[in-house]
């Protein structure tokens, strides 16, 4: 669990680096558009999208992974006219907000039951073999490994989320291949790594097979 002290806004370095954080011209417009989605007086509802926007801006500014230094959280709170504590609560609640610096690629390996049954241990092994370490930035700022709970793509277990993309149906080798590709600066295609279409059954349909060929009326066959 992140400890707030690592991200102490009163730490002179953090203040110095992030105290002056402000939207880029582009993001200022985006932020305004996001805030406009909510009725007047309810702009605080925009706190999640704005924290996300801020995290992305931090990623760009640092040319690495996005995270939320405390002064940035405070900036978002100020933008929305809410006490910093309330924005901080939100930032700590959702695991997608990083409270500490992460690598350019945040490799989030799902370790929840379906993924575990389908071999997430191998995925972890591949990460380990590649030299990734949980919660640490490795490979010169490139990777941070994290174990996460279900990311809602269990049908393609085991799954890894790297920044905004999911890599699915992984095993040891394919995980390694993806990490290597990322390291080379390529952008491997997201989705299933076995080539199956989205989450369709492997090896073709197992139910409603007739349907796969032509439009079949099953109604007569219902008991």
């Amino acid at each position: 669990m992140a400890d707030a002290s690592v991200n102490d806004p009163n730490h002179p370095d953090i203040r110095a680096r992030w105290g002056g954080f402000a939207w880029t011209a582009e993001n200022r417009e985006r932020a305004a558009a996001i805030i406009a989605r909510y009725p007047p007086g309810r702009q605080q509802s925009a706190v999640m999208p704005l924290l996300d926007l801020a995290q992305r801006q931090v990623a760009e500014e640092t040319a690495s992974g996005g995270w939320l230094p405390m002064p940035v959280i405070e900036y978002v709170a100020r933008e929305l006219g809410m006490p910093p504590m309330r924005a901080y609560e939100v930032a700590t609640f959702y695991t997608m907000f990083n409270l500490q610096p992460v690598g350019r690629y945040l490799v989030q390996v799902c370790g929840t039951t379906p993924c575990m049954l389908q071999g997430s241990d191998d995925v972890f092994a591949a990460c380990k073999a590649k030299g990734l370490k949980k919660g640490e930035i490795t490979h010169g700022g490139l990777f941070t490994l994290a174990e996460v709970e279900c990311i809602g793509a269990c049908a393609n277990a085991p799954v890894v989320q790297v920044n905004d993309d999911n890599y699915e149906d992984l095993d040891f080798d394919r995980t390694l291949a993806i990490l290597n590709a990322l390291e080379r600066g390529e952008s491997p295609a997201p989705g299933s790594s076995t080539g199956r279409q989205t989450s369709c059954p492997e090896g073709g349909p197992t139910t409603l097979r007739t349907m796969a060929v032509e439009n079949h009326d099953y109604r007569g066959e219902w008991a």
Partner: protein
Amino acid sequence: MPKLTVDGIEVEVPNGSTVLQACEAAGKEIPRFCYHERLAIAGNCRMCLVEAKPGPPKPQASCALPAADGQEIRTDTLTVKKAREGVMEFLLINHPLDCPICDQGGQCDLQDLAVGYGRGMSRFEENKRAVNEKYMGPLIATAMTRCIQCTRCVRFAEEVAGVEELGTVFRGENMQITAYLDAALTSELSGNVADLCPVGALNHKPYHFESRPWELRRAPAIDVFDAVGTNIHLSSRARQIVRAIPRINDDVNEEWAADKTRYAIDGLYRNRLDRPWVRREGKLQPVDWAEALAVVAERMRAANASVAAVAGALLDAETMAAAKSLLRSVGSDLYEHRQAGHATPTDGLAALRFNSGIAGIEEADAILLVGTNPRWEAPLVNTRLRKAVKTGSTVFAIGERVDLTYPVTWLGEDLSLLGRLPAEVAERFRGASKPAVILGEGATLVEGTLGDALDFANTFNLVREGWNGFNVLSTTASAQGALMLGFAVPGGLAELAARRPEVLFLLGADELELQPFAGAFTVYVGHHGDRGARVADVILPSASYAEKPGTYVNLEGRVQISERAVFPPGDAREDWSIFRALSDLLGTPLPFDTHDQLRARMYAEVPALARINAVAPAPWSVPVAPTGASGRATLPVQDFYLTDPISRASPTMRRCSAEILHGQTMAEAAE
């Protein structure tokens, strides 16, 4: 009005009630941790489970379930008992069970309910979670591993205190309560979170490891640090006050107490005057009572009627009544209580008090503050104003800009604004159904403000059928009592000084400008070696509010009685008995030998003081007061934590002042 049955008992509850309230109406006790009747409903502890029909076939949280017509509630079934036991078992999984070293032991909701719903031993074999200690300032001691995440403290800070500095961070098992950046809470009501905490996670730091609740003797008392008249219990152990906690009184303090009320009590044992002193050759020398009284009597005899008395901020009505009798017996009428030098007319009581009432001000829909910072002058009036704002009232203010925890439209600092309000503000007051003005003592000190405010009241019809919106915010516990007793001269302190009294009694009066009284023989009757005692020629040690029974009249005119919690230290005596003894030496014994007799005489003189807990009637009459104020008002309270001899002597209050108001960081002593 839904009608429902609880365990077969039929009850009818007001619309909007919860099932928990309905159960209470039926006389059923519902265990709870997160629910608190003065806070928003959270529904997160699950201890209040009941069975409800119609509804899903599982127990439901009664605190968050609206009561509905025809509901059948069961609180006594096996399912309910089992369900609550389950909740309790989960709560105890991570609770450290360190009751023997916990301040809350003996007054802990978790401990109490575990008797009813806990099992004898734990089935949990994993590691318990532990949470880092948090820092919340000089008043709150934390032991966050004990926290059960009820969020009462967070809700209090946000809803009542209005400082959103507490929050729940992280989630699930890692969830914890913390103050933003571990900074001291900047609230003058922070102590209430320790009372609200159902477990021992938040404790009173000054009371940390002091005593167990069952070792304490409690006396019902009235707080004297402001004019609210907060109802408190003063708890003592071994003849020493160890804590002050609020008593519930919905008309006055609800369930809260300000931090000064709670924590200035350590000032009672510092810098105390516990023996008489007489100044000889420029130096104060300890003497015995007989000698001290003889010196004073001699001076008084020489002075004839040229004797004056100034009452301090913390005085009870009896002390002032006795002092007044003494002065009258020598033919003097030079007594005054307005140490700041007010010379406003005192003939119309209503023009000098908080007529809307503490609870009543919640109903005001347009409020004008003039030269006041209610957050410091009367924190528990400020919480009422906050409630008013929440229900749609608008607050305007003339005066120094301060953070009142709710939105305020600041009109400017110059008091002349009172007579020329901007058109839209005037419009708002014209359209209000319960308009109110609140005058600070700093404002009434400026000549003309009272008159202008009375004009304002007249223009906008502030006093109407069933509503009086004219309010003066007294800051001292003695003020309203003194006014009722007539302990004032028309010209105020200036008049007193102009009459050049030869003997000046300072009755716990430490805030006045003494320069104009130079040359007077000064007798300090009080309990702390503060400003007044320092310049006195004779010091007669007396009892503090905790050490004598007393009558106090709060800012709305409510007469309340405080009991003695402990005896005065050393040779100090109750104030009235000092005056009684002096009168003997003067050969004109005062007509009372006991406190009861004094009270009876006081009641005979001012019958309204005999109506305990009632607001003394003050029919609306508009006194003649000059108008045309201009300039700025100085706020009467410049440092919330250090306002009087007791709080100035209190190490806790000094630390609060340094840390919370002046931003000093304090090294935490290792515990």
